């Protein structure tokens, strides 16, 4: 049996060697980019390890939470669009907002009428009607507003506030969305949460893709402002190193906080809930409340990491969010690294991301050479979209990795440290 320390040491040195090879082979600018992206994924993976490793929650919609957070961060930090503020757009949006608030208040009021003795079936009916009327009224006023904004100002632009505030608010938005999903599905079995989160992530993507007045849709928003000097000012290597220092600091802070929390009575309670729901409930723990807490906390961190990831790419493109890159890749990082082990999660994120980013040229290399030899030997003609198809191989590999890890190494490379109190 290999001890935990040896495993951790082997993993760290293995990753260090890989990173060194990438730096030597592809240059410092590329290596830095890889490290920054890997660190953003590590942040997201830390959020997921809270949800899955600490609380056993199945979040299959990470992509949606990353997308909503990246959007909010873009909205907060992108420079102000004066065309929009000079047009009638803000006033019309204000009216739509007012309608929404009033309508929501009336709907909520109707939903509470049972307190005054109204039978519940009338209450439900009235609430539904009020909700539908509100929806139609808001849509009615929002439609011309969006058309006007799109024609006169292209999109609403941002608020020009600091980037860190954008990340924070983005994280909070992701947390709020997670809260809403959790409120509905937490009392049920975990499968329902998986389905609901998967659904909400597709909806968030559909919304961001089609709400041209907010996000420019397929035209994409760029360049997103950075929290550190951009490559134009410092050059690629230095500016990316500065970015890395920001994300790495965040990781270190979160790591220390989580390690402390994990060893505290709160962490013990969470483990108890995860491992034996029934006895934890019997000890008087409010299981669903605690889980909701974990879901929201994890989502905030996922949101911050996601905002950092998209900010680094410097372009907000709603169509670029893919379940594979932004949900399942992160799942592989967490379960391979070791769910419930913070160090394992961070190392897993680094390792998987390096393999992932190297797999693209590797897949293309293998497929092009394979096609060449097949052609030479058997006269086989490769289809024209071989490159696109070769990249689909990565989908297969991620799926295979998930199934293999679950079966043969369910605890990951660095298993959770089981704390014993004797």
């Amino acid at each position: 049996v290999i001890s935990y320390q040896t495993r951790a040491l082997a993993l760290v040195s293995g990753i260090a060697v890989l990173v060194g090879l990438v730096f030597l082979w592809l240059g410092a600018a590329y290596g830095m980019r890889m490290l920054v992206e890997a660190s953003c994924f590590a942040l997201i993976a830390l959020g997921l390890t809270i949800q899955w490793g600490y609380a056993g929650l199945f979040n299959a919609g990470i992509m949606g939470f990353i997308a909503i957070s990246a959007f909010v961060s873009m909205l907060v930090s992108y420079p102000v669009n004066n065309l929009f503020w000079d047009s009638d757009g803000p006033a019309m949006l204000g009216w739509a907002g007012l309608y929404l608030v009033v309508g929501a208040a009336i709907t909520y009021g109707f939903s509470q009428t049972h307190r005054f003795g109204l039978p519940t079936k009338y209450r439900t009916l009235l609430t539904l009607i009020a909700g539908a009327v509100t929806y139609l009224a808001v849509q009615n006023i929002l439609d011309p507003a969006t058309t006007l904004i799109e024609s006169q100002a292209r999109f609403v632009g941002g608020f020009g506030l600091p980037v860190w505030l954008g990340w924070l608010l983005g994280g909070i938005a992701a947390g709020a969305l997670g809260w809403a999903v959790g409120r509905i599905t937490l009392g049920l079995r975990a499968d329902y949460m998986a389905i609901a989160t998967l659904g909400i992530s597709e909806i968030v993507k559909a919304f961001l893709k089609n709400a041209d007045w907010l996000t420019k849709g397929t035209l994409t928003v760029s360049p997103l402002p950075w929290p550190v000097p951009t490559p134009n000012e410092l050059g690629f290597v230095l500016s990316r190193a500065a970015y890395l220092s920001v994300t790495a600091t965040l990781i270190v802070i979160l790591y220390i906080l989580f390690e402390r929390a994990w060893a505290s009575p709160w962490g013990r309670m969470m483990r108890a809930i995860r491992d034996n729901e029934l006895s934890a409930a019997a000890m008087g723990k409010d299981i669903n409340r605690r889980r909701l807490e974990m879901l929201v906390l994890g989502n905030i961190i996922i949101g911050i990491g996601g905002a950092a990831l998209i900010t680094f790419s410097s372009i907000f493109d709603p169509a670029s969010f893919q379940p594979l890159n932004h949900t399942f890749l992160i799942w592989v990082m967490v379960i391979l690294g070791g769910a419930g082990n913070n160090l394992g999660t961070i190392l897993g994120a680094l390792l998987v991301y390096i393999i992932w980013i190297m797999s693209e040229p590797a897949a293309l290399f293998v497929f092009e050479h394979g096609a060449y030899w097949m052609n030479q030997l058997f006269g086989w003609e490769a289809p024209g979209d071989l490159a696109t198809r070769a990249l689909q191989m990565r989908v297969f590999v991620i799926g295979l990795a998930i199934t293999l890890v679950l079966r043969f190494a369910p605890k990951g490379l660095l298993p959770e440290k089981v704390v014993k109190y004797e």
Partner: protein
Amino acid sequence: MGETGFLAALPINEFVFFINKGVLAGLIIGSVYALGAVGVTLIFGILRFAHFPHGDMMTAGAFFALMLTALFPNAGAFIGLPSAFVLLPFAMALTALLAIGLDRVFYKPLRATDAKPIVIVMASIGVALMMQGVIRLFAGTTARQLDAGAKSIYRVAFGGRDIVLTQPQLILIMFTAVAVAALHLFLTRSRMGKAMRAMSDNPDLARVSGISTDHVVRTTWIIAGALAAASGTLLSLDVSLKPDLSFNLLLPIFAAAIVGGIGQPYGAIAGGLLVGFTETLAVFNWSVLLRPLQPLLPDWIEVPTKLAFVPTEYKIVIPFFILIAVLIWRPTGIFKGRLLK
């Protein structure tokens, strides 16, 4: 839709338009969802996990049909039905084998180690990704036509305007009806069907009364795989075969299975139709129906040119809201399925 002659005509035209674009379209997509949801609900009821690769299994079934059609392109010519439909039983058999194989390799070992259900769900997502990768690797990402020839179209004259139904659509609706009846007979009359219901109701009791788990599990995969292949093939016959459907189909199918109540095949059928109709009617342009009323309305009310509850690009929101509404108000589904804890 925008012809002026049509707008000026009698309301009967609008009514037929509603039947074509609302009722029939809902019935068609609802049948596809229903066939998928039956499989999901059976797997959920007996194996107790949400089967995420179901959309990919539908795509795989359609691809088997495509390959068979490429091998025997004239299979259907002499009966006058699409070749893909004539070869459908073979595609169903192949998909059923695939389903059993996937179970053997990926889920059975996990069941044997008493893994938590959620771990099996996660493994099923892994399987979904693998299937997606393989299908797209071999088939590319472009849409294909399953039936090369022109589709025969049936028209029923109805007050000056035709109710239009293509042959694949008619086949789909009829196949669903036959499949539902067959499934009903199977589940209520046959030994195996009763064993499956027993297993779904109470696995421990079923096991001690001598029902073989392996048999039941295998039958479940056969039914789920075969129906998935059928719905995938028939959907692709109607529109086209898209290799990237999977997650888009998954949400309506899960919504249908949960609305109908987990472990309730009839519920799944009702749920599939419900989701299909709601989806179609929500994106339906209601102003077509309201416009004939314009002369009766006071002047200050003007029927807008576009009056749909939800814009088409947000169609995916509908099954999600149905799902949420059911989970909030009646988590057991309308047919009182089991609430898995």
